[in-house]
């Protein structure tokens, strides 16, 4: 399956991943597979109420149950400071982070932890939970963003006041903060517009839906050192969170990342690690906790439900002259929804002279939201891309044509101010216009074709890589980026390309916090970009050392007698005289002198000892990611059920290092977006209890709900990366909800203003 691009030997091929055999044979060790001598099993007692004051907790009966070794409540945790802590990728308030892991005085959502048990078996731990007596004062919940914003809404955090445009106010409210971005003169822009469209949209809470539940195994040793094994997107981020919550120096916490069964942003925040740690300290034995699927839905971080208003104005010639949006996002029980990113993304595919975007971060009695693939952007794009589609229709323009007219290019300004570097948005629009899918007539009744675009920033952040040269000329690559989708391969490939050796000669290993320099999470579409960058730099470091050693050896080998120092200096061989191509080092001053990478490796011991290349990266030029999607649907007019007939996702990936895994990221993101569009939603009753917390009733797409997902990888190299890489992982989830909505409109003549567009909702629109 290998087909290298002309310029490269390794990049662009499709080799088998180094961890492949372990993962298809069941040998790979995921967090849930951890087993330590004397290990206990932990379970967490969770609030049955969405909003309640915790008056008392009595654990006596649970402690008395045979087999129970430890029972803990918030009293067993240090009192967390009310301050922001920088956790690498993100900054969080330590007190709120800690209170989410174990409720302090109030339970703020159904599933909020209030106590935990460690016992000799999971069944006994579970029985013990039933023996813990908790006295609650049940309070009325605030469950929907618009209700929670009302003056009369029950307050989740009595002490919380609204931060208005960055300024702390004295106003007590569930609105944690109000953001605003303005560009140009929106009012004037709308006056200049020939046509203005204004719509409101609603999206439901959705979950990342990774198949592997959260898990954590902790051993708090007698010497005070804490060891954690867990499935996480970032070991260092777990280390810092655990240290902050437990009041330990990071040096006292070692985190080993196990193989991870999916994250999508949901395995960055800690939930179980500090609980397992405190249980371990109390029991004096290692403790493993694994969440049930119900706990996953009720008590981990989904992505926000939202209410979004969008107003856009255009001239008859199709140019969009003004845009306004107001985004209200549910943060969950604690502040910190991705509304800021939503605001900064909502109009980013377009060059619009006049814009205003307001964002509201609102707390509600639901689990604290977490990141989910391009956090905040999909909600926003559903709203804006639907309005753009309507503008095109009203102007008599093809929906791709209005994007061609207004699409963002290098130098255009985002609503938050900065201008775009070289981006490939227009390339995706042109590729869509020229794609056979778009030219193919859509025959048959009740069918429609929709398109939508999306933007995501991507991030760089910090990565570290070490490369050790083996005596046989192969190398061992050590990295801190957990591999969730084949990044061992995509990073090893970049090292192999730079080192000029075969991919098979690079053996990558993912290690924990004691084994490598700080590395941020595998998330933000950054791993192949930033850790790959570090792998490239570490490879150059290896080559630099080899050139130095060769120069020294070759220079020393010169037997010739020199006529004085001047001539000696003339002849001196320096590292600059050593070239390296196709695995062979040559001497510019003496064609007779050559040595291969493998020969140097074999003789390292006589050439200055072991060779270890190292590099850290914190790349700036992340390059933005853009995608344009085309979808065909059929709507059953009797039932409102939507069938996806065909899907084509076009994306600027900069450079596809391993095309199969780049395609896989796109296909996975698209299907998560299709699930979001059609059926996925958290359904709550009036008490704030989620009533569909299972994979049966939280309906993620199955094989039978989908066609093949066609991908087009447009390559507009990112000048900020040695191989032109742009992050690919997140932006594919941005367009699908809007694309499906626009396709349903074409099929039915009904505009969708709610996600999910479940059969019940679509039917109600059809019966209007």
């Amino acid at each position: 399956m290998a087909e290298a691009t002309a310029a490269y030997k390794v990049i662009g091929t499709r080799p088998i991943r180094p961890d492949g055999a372990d993962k298809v044979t069941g040998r790979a060790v995921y967090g849930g597979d951890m087993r330590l001598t004397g290990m206990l099993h932990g379970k967490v007692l969770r609030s049955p109420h969405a909003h309640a004051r915790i008056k008392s907790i009595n654990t006596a009966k649970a402690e008395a149950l045979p087999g129970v070794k430890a029972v803990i409540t918030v009293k067993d945790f240090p009192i967390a400071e009310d301050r922001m802590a920088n956790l690498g990728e993100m900054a969080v308030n330590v007190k709120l982070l800690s209170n989410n892991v174990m409720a302090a005085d109030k339970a703020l959502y159904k599933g909020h932890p209030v106590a935990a048990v460690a016992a000799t078996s999971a069944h006994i731990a579970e029985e013990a939970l039933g023996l813990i007596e908790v006295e609650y004062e049940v309070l009325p919940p605030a469950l929907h963003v618009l209700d929670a914003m009302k003056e009369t809404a029950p307050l989740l955090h009595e002490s919380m006041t609204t931060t208005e445009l960055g300024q702390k106010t004295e106003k007590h409210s569930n609105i944690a903060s109000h953001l605003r971005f303005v560009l140009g003169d929106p009012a004037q822009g709308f006056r200049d517009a020939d046509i203005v469209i204004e719509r409101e949209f609603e999206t439901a809470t959705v979950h990342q839906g990774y198949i592997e539940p959260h898990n954590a195994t902790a051993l708090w040793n007698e010497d005070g050192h804490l060891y954690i094994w867990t499935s996480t997107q970032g070991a260092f981020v777990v280390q810092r969170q655990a240290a902050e919550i437990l009041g330990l120096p990071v040096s006292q916490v070692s985190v080993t990342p196990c193989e991870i069964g999916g994250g999508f942003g949901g395995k960055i925040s800690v939930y179980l690690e500090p609980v397992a740690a405190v249980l371990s300290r109390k029991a004096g034995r290692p403790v493993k906790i694994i969440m049930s699927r119900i706990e996953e839905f009720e008590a981990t971080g989904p992505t926000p439900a939202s209410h979004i208003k969008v107003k856009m104005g255009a001239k008859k010639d199709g140019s969009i002259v003004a845009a306004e949006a107001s985004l209200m996002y549910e943060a969950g029980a604690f502040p910190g929804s991705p509304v800021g990113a939503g605001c900064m993304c909502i109009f980013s595919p377009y060059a619009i002279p006049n814009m205003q975007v307001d964002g509201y971060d609102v707390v509600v009695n639901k689990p604290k939201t977490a990141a989910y693939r391009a956090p905040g952007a999909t909600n926003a794009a559903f709203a804006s891309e639907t309005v753009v589609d309507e503008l095109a229709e009203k102007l008599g323009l093809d929906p791709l044509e209005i994007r061609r007219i207004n699409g963002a290019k290098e130098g255009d300004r985002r609503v938050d101010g900065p201008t775009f570097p070289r981006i490939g948005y227009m390339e995706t629009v042109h590729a869509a216009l020229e794609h056979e899918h778009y030219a193919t007539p859509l025959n048959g009744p009740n069918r429609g074709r929709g398109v939508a675009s999306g933007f995501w920033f991507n991030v760089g952040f910090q990565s570290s890589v070490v490369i050790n040269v083996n005596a046989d000329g192969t190398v061992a690559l050590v990295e801190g980026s957990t591999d969730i989708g084949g990044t061992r391969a995509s990073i090893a490939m970049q090292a192999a390309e730079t080192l000029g050796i075969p991919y098979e000669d690079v053996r990558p290993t993912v290690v924990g916090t004691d084994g490598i320099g700080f590395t941020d999470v595998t998330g933000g579409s950054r791993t192949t970009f930033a850790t790959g960058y570090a792998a490239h730099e570490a490879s150059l470091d290896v080559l630099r050392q080899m050139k130095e050693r060769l120069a020294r050896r070759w220079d020393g080998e010169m037997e010739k007698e020199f006529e004085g120092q001047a001539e000696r200096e003339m002849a001196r061989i320096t590292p600059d005289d050593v070239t390296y191509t196709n695995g062979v080092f040559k001497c510019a001053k003496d064609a007779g002198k050559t040595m291969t990478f493998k020969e140097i490796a074999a003789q390292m011991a006589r050439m200055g000892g072991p060779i270890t290349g190292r590099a850290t990266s914190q790349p700036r030029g992340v390059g933005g990611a853009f995608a344009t999607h085309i979808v065909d649907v059929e709507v059953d007019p009797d039932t409102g059920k939507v069938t996806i007939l065909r899907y084509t996702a076009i994306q600027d990936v900069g450079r596809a290092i391993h095309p199969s895994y780049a395609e896989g990221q796109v296909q996975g993101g698209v299907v998560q977006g299709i699930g979001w569009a059609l059926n996925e939603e958290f359904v709550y009753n009036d008490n704030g209890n989620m009533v569909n917390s299972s994979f049966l009733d939280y309906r993620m797409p199955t094989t039978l709900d989908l066609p093949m997902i066609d991908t087009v990888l447009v390559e507009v190299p990112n000048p900020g990366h040695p191989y032109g890489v742009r992050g690919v992982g997140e932006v594919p989830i941005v367009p699908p909800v809007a694309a499906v909505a626009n396709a349903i409109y074409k099929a039915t003549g009904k505009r969708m203003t709610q996600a999910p567009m479940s059969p019940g909702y679509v039917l109600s629109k059809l019966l209007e």
Partner: protein
Amino acid sequence: MPKVHVQTRINGEDIDFLCESRQSLLEVLRDDLGLTGTKEGCSNGNCGACSVLLDGVLVDSCLVLAVETAGKEVATIEGLASPSKLHPLQQKFLEHAALQCGICTPGFIMAAKALLVKNPTPTEHEVRYWLAGNLCRCTGYDKIVRAVLDAATVMEKA
């Protein structure tokens, strides 16, 4: 609660174990027998990550009591590859990049194995229908379906 003595065959070997009636086959495989290749995704029969073959029939091991396996034959992912050679399904999953995180992969491979025994030349629709009980959140299924179809072709030739 006294434990029950269960005699069974797992991946061709006679295996005895003691378990409580309430323990699922999944629990015993993973926690007592150390066969952690079979994964837990939801523990109520909705994701297929724990798929195994019970007397040749595809089941979710989270919905089988371990005591029920007395006198039965259990096949798990650990028994699929032959020494130094992956099963064609395993090989094709790798070649087609049909796994990303890999947590659902053992379940998908066991389910696909059961399909190809019953129907060696499935259509794309038949593959999608048969695998609808296995959830994958990473791949969008495209490459999984292609891998299974390709494996079927290879196994037919062999």
